[in-house]
């Protein structure tokens, strides 16, 4: 079971689009879009208190939810690609960028307010992602 764990990570195909970090960025953008679409879809079906609503099946009736699912599926492709080349822990931590784009998107498209606290949270996430980027640069320097 551990055979594959110690092999060095492979090198991606050359070209900007195939850069695994760009793919993570695209995954983050698509996931943020998906979250907002699912939120809109969930609001459309609010008030349906059947047993199925606990499993999220009531939401499947709205178009926004299906668009959200489509965005999730698309983001999944980029995510699987990135996982071929990056360690899981690092890649997943970078997807925290979603929490920058969800408030921004909610502000742009849903008219939600970004408070000072929320704004500072976004700045702390950006700082964290920059530190992660530095840690990658350091690790690659050593190789």
């Amino acid at each position, binding site marked *: 079971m*551990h*055979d*594959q*764990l*110690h*092999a060095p990570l*492979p090198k991606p195909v050359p070209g900007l689009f195939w850069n695994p970090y760009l793919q993570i960025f695209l995954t983050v953008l698509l996931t943020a879009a998906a979250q907002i679409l*699912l*939120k809109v879809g*969930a609001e459309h*079906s*609010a008030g349906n208190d059947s047993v199925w*609503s*606990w*499993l*999220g*099946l*009531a*939401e499947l009736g709205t178009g926004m939810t299906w668009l959200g699912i489509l965005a*999730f599926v698309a983001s999944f492709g980029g*995510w*699987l690609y990135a*996982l*071929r080349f990056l*360690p*899981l*822990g*690092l890649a*997943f*931590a970078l*997807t*925290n960028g979603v*929490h920058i784009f969800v*408030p921004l998107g909610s502000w742009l498209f849903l008219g939600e307010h970004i*408070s*000072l*606290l*929320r704004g*500072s*949270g*976004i*700045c*702390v*996430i*950006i*700082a*964290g*992602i*920059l*530190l*992660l*980027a*530095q*840690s*990658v640069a*350091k*690790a690659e320097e050593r190789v």
Partner: protein
Amino acid sequence: MSVTAWVLVVISQLALVAGQIYLKRAMSRREQPGEASRGWIGLLVIGIATMTVWFLLWLGVMHQVELSKLMPLEGISPLLIVLGAALFLRERLNARGWAGVILTCVGVLLVSAS
């Protein structure tokens, strides 16, 4: 939050961590040469099935509970993933990497507290 909602949240977070570990295992095995790559599709299917469980549970919880109450719980998932990856995939992060993970989690908590 009701007890049912808490139980669903815990199961969904466990499903998320397990699903991601299976996906990573699948994609790592796919890169192995020849015979060694066999079985990666099976691992991928397990990963996708587990992520589907996570997705449906999360959608259901989102329907019942305010998003602002769920976000802090989602904020700890990167930490859970890093711990899971260290335990089951033997991944190691350097000090800067850990600091980055913790800072992003703190940021997510701040965003969700607002």
